[in-house]
């Protein structure tokens, strides 16, 4: 016996009530509903699953995954944040630092700067770096295919052309501010092939302020970049944010008409609720709740995706029993903002690939375990 459409909608809706949430757990498991088959089948998953794109820019992508469970959507999100490798500054060799920023603080600031470069080089040519054992030569494992060398050499000097009573340090001195763009990439070995011209390793944003200097202060250091993952340090995370929210649902159960409709509209962000005129036909139908209201405005849901689910509408007595708020359990609106080393959409595909590879390796491990 197949459940009715109404029942399916109820199961698929997480209730957002005035003070509580309801129906939060998934129930699509075999044995949960007598006589219903919820066994996993890839054909069934394929036919229920779909993707909708909302936005696709290099540093900002938004799309919906529809027909997938929270556990799977969450796995993708977690992989995006913590398990996709990027290149970041890992070692800082400070030759001289007479600025007011302490060495360790400076090193930390440098580590957090996002860099970009030739994609082929970063994704395919550069491989993992293995830290040498204690007592081993510290550079024993550093090669062109796992280490990128950067240098930062800045000295602040008095600007001889500045007016004698100049108060702005940026005009009175040269290099009063040290920016990310002052970092120089030093290609080594085969890196010349992968990271020259437009493909050079450069900071994603050249205007990140690293330190402030005064005349005769100097920063003189070299840096090694390695590949790493966000689980180890968030500087390696390829995303600024990777998050999802469930699609908001607004169900108007009884008509909201006239001045109430306008007030109802103001309970939601702009564009969520629209106002439509009650038609003569609707008004003539008895029991519709529109009787005698022809020509007045009624509230209709225009775009529930724009809603922030503030529950404001539930606070007003005039809307009591007229509106139900909820979220669709299997509709995930993803938003991915890349820090630059990957395209945002490419990142999601990488996360899917990553989960598959993880399962594949563990499947082999399970087979080995049984033997």
């Amino acid at each position: 016996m197949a459940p009715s459409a109404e029942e399916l909608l109820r199961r698929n809706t997480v209730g957002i009530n005035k003070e509580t949430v309801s129906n939060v757990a998934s129930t699509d498991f075999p044995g949960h509903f007598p006589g219903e088959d919820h066994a996993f089948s890839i054909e069934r998953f394929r036919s229920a699953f779909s993707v909708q794109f909302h936005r696709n820019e290099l540093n900002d992508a938004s799309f919906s995954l529809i027909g997938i469970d929270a556990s799977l959507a969450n796995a993708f999100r977690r992989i995006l944040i913590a398990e996709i490798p990027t290149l970041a500054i890992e070692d800082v060799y400070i030759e001289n630092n007479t600025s007011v920023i302490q060495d360790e603080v400076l090193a930390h600031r440098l580590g957090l700067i996002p860099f970009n470069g030739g994609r082929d080089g970063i994704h395919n040519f550069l491989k993992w770096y293995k830290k040498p054992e204690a007592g081993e030569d510290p550079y024993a494992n550093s090669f062109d295919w796992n280490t990128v060398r950067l240098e930062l050499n800045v000295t602040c000097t008095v600007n001889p052309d500045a007016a004698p009573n100049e108060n702005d340090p940026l005009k009175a001195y040269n290099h009063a501010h040290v920016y990310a763009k002052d970092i120089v990439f030093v290609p080594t070995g085969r890196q010349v092939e992968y990271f020259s011209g437009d493909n050079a390793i450069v900071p994603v944003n050249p205007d990140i302020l690293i330190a402030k200097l005064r005349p005769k202060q100097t920063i003189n250091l070299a840096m090694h970049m390695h590949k790493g993952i966000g689980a180890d340090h968030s500087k390696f995370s390829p995303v600024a944010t990777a998050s999802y929210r469930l699609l908001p649902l607004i169900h108007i159960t009884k008509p909201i008409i006239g001045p109430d409709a306008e007030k109802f509209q103001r309970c939601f962000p702009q564009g969520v609720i629209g106002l439509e005129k009650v038609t003569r036909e609707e008004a003539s139908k008895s029991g519709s709740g529109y009787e005698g209201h022809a020509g007045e405005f009624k509230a209709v849901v225009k775009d529930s995706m724009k809603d922030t689910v503030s529950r404001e509408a539930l606070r007003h007595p005039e809307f009591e029993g007229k509106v139900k708020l909820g979220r669709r359990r299997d509709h995930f609106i993803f938003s991915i903002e890349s820090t630059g080393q990957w395209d945002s959409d490419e990142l999601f595909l990488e996360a899917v690939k990553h989960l598959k590879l993880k399962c594949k390796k563990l499947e082999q491990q399970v087979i080995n375990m049984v033997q």
Partner: protein
Amino acid sequence: MPGRTKAQADASSQDADMQDVPPSGQDEINQDAEMRENAEAEEEEEEEVEPQRVRILPGSTDTAASFEFTDEGHTLGNALRYVIMKNPDVEFCAYSIPHPSEPKMNIRIQTYDGTAVNALKKGLSDLQDVCDVVAEEFWTKRQQFNSEQGIDR
């Protein structure tokens, strides 16, 4: 990645096919293919050395077993729990991370029918199928969106 290995093995034997392989360094086909093959061989070697990360915990029987995964967490734990629970032969499945400072994740499986190990294997392979479907659908919808919006990259 057997799929990739195969594509590259083909590429080194007959260069013409390399044109069909989507993104790759076009300039030094031979050198690149050779280098990647070496890298692949290294990776395979590493995979052989890779320590056993799954074990059955003591006290387990054929139909009711607990598995300990090293270096896995909620990412895989919850996803795997979900797919295993979708198996009608499974009576019970749950995962836990016994202590947050130990990199271990335990999965408990009890079955009505068949062994717990088989349910685990099925779960891992179903999860791979899910990934294929998600990637395929994502890819087609992205291409469609990009061509509609005139995004070219």
